[in-house]
């Protein structure tokens, strides 16, 4: 009896001793894995890195050409370190990572990605092309694709699949990007990177605030979002406008879950969701859950006001095409990516890919999930969790799944009252990473 009683504090003391050391080691591994990807990406000539201006040319002598093998190993190692840090930090008594260390670590990862090249996606060049179409060439990006400005210096960096495609992003984002057009391609890329980094910082600050408001561990919450390898490498590394969308999402959540959410705050929260949807439409998924959970007129009025104002601005700036978001969404919903779960399930059942009937089945499934979540929210379920589930369901049922889409529910998951959401989000992210590993097992060269 006494031996047991003595051993427990002993283990506790030992744990408290090694936990910070292990935490620091895992943090170093995560930083090293991220730095490896960024430095090798800066060396250029990689099939993983889009053609781009040499914004990180000064880093190019340090790294080697980024191959699939190196990238995947770094991603898997980073994911392992991320998991280890989350497990260690789950027990605050261990003191594995302090508040200051967490912020420094997240800032370091952001800085490493910021100074490097654009990673893994050409999307940012589409954003710049749409801005330059409007500002430099007087063309409506909701009518024309970047091929209309084939002589523009940004055109050669736009992904082949998107050269004839008009923008699917909201008019607010397009207008936000317009001031960046006169900066030139290099300047606009840096500005886009800065915008994504600042949006991420804002998202993390609000994640902290929301976690604290809900009596959750804010350090753990920001580590779960800010160290997430997909968030850092794909989301931030690609300077995706999803980061701006996530910021709007978390502003709305923070306004709503404040201790005294006045009608004005609730109206403001709904208006911010609409503003976020005018950046990227997906975030509109939060609105029905927010309205159903509040059962007040204020969020409805806030949303309606923002819709009217946004539609007016979109119409004045871009005409009727600028407010026809449904058409753009329908067009994108028809795309199929190799990483989509729908495509994987089709292969599992011996089909070569996704057929139109599958799109309808998936949409039907999504509608059922949303209806169930709305009913649960009506009956008192946490609306933040319901919104997170809805975003996760959108990404899982989408036939066009990209890594940064499975980031959408993450900030909601860490501040939600249903821990199953975080588990589900992380499992989906893990499956996405696992789906990338075939070049590790058989590399075609």
């Amino acid at each position, binding site marked *: 009896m006494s031996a047991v009683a003595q051993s427990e504090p002993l283990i506790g003391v030992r744990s408290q001793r090694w936990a910070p050391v292990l935490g620091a080691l895992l943090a170093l591994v995560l930083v090293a894995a991220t730095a490896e990807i960024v430095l090798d990406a800066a060396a250029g000539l990689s099939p993983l890195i889009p053609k781009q201006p040499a914004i990180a040319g000064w880093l190019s002598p340090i790294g080697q050409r980024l191959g699939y093998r190196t990238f995947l190993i770094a991603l898997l190692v980073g994911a392992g370190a991320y998991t280890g840090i989350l497990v260690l930090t789950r027990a605050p008594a261990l003191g594995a990572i302090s508040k200051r260390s967490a912020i420094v670590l997240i800032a370091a990862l952001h800085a490493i990605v910021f100074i490097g090249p654009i990673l893994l996606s050409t999307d940012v060049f589409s954003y710049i092309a749409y801005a330059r179409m409007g500002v430099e060439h007087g063309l409506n990006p909701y009518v024309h694709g970047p091929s209309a400005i084939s002589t523009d210096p940004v055109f050669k960096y736009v992904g082949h699949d998107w050269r004839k495609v008009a923008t699917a992003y909201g008019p607010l984002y397009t207008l936000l990007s317009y001031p960046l057009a006169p900066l030139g391609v290099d300047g606009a890329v840096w500005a886009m990177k800065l915008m994504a980094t600042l949006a991420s910082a804002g998202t993390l600050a609000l994640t902290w605030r929301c976690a604290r408001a809900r009596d959750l561990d804010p350090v753990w919450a920001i580590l779960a979002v800010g160290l997430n390898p997909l968030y850092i490498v794909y989301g931030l590394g690609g300077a995706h406008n999803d980061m701006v969308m996530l910021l709007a999402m978390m502003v709305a959540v923070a306004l709503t879950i404040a201790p005294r959410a006045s009608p004005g705050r609730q109206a403001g929260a709904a208006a911010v969701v609409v503003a976020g949807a005018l950046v990227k439409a997906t975030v509109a998924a939060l609105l029905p859950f927010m309205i159903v959970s509040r059962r007040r007129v204020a969020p409805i009025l806030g949303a309606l006001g923002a819709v009217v104002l946004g539609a007016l601005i979109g119409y004045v700036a871009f005409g009727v095409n600028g407010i026809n978001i449904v058409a753009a969404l329908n067009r994108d919903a028809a795309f199929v990516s190799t990483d989509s779960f729908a495509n994987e399930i089709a292969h599992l059942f011996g089909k070569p890919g996704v057929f139109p009937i599958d799109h309808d089945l998936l949409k039907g499934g999504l509608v059922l999930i949303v209806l169930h979540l709305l009913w649960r929210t009506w009956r008192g379920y946490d609306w933040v969790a319901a919104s997170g589930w809805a975003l996760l369901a959108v990404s899982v049922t989408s036939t066009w799944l990209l890594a940064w889409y499975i980031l959408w529910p993450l900030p909601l998951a860490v501040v939600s009252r*249903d821990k199953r959401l975080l588990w589900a989000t992380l*499992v989906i992210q893990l499956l996405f990473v*696992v*789906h990338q590993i*075939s070049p590790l097992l058989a*590399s*075609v060269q």
Partner: protein
Amino acid sequence: MSTPPTPATTERFSSLPGWMRPRDVELPGLGQLRLIETTVLLLVGLLLAIATINDVARQVHVNQRLIADLRTWRSYTGHDFKNVSADQELFGPSSQREVVCGNTSAGAPKATTQICLLIWGPTVNGKRAVHGGWYLPAKVEDERSDRYGCFGSAAERLCSR
């Protein structure tokens, strides 16, 4: 979820039956619903995990076939070039038949005359059988109208001249 239950916040919905009235927080005793939800989630997760692993295994098989194709091209042409491309679209991705193209002499990809081989069949000693092929001029994609010098019976119907 530990917050104690409270009645619905407004009187507006008091005419609704109890099971339909809105609530600010969930009632305790929803364990069965959560159990059903969790079971469904686990089953969906299992399906997605199986589909993912199946797809990785499928892609590994494709990669192994492509590795054999590239090895076959290098052995057949005697050129150990790095930039050799394999096209799965001509016969369809599920046909396991590939068109593998590369330069006939050293240079940047497609900078010189190219030779394309039609490859299929089982992998034997790391290689597969060549069933024909054609040449392409420099700097063109593999279009039927540009193919010439076709050889092998399998290539006849795929060539224009």
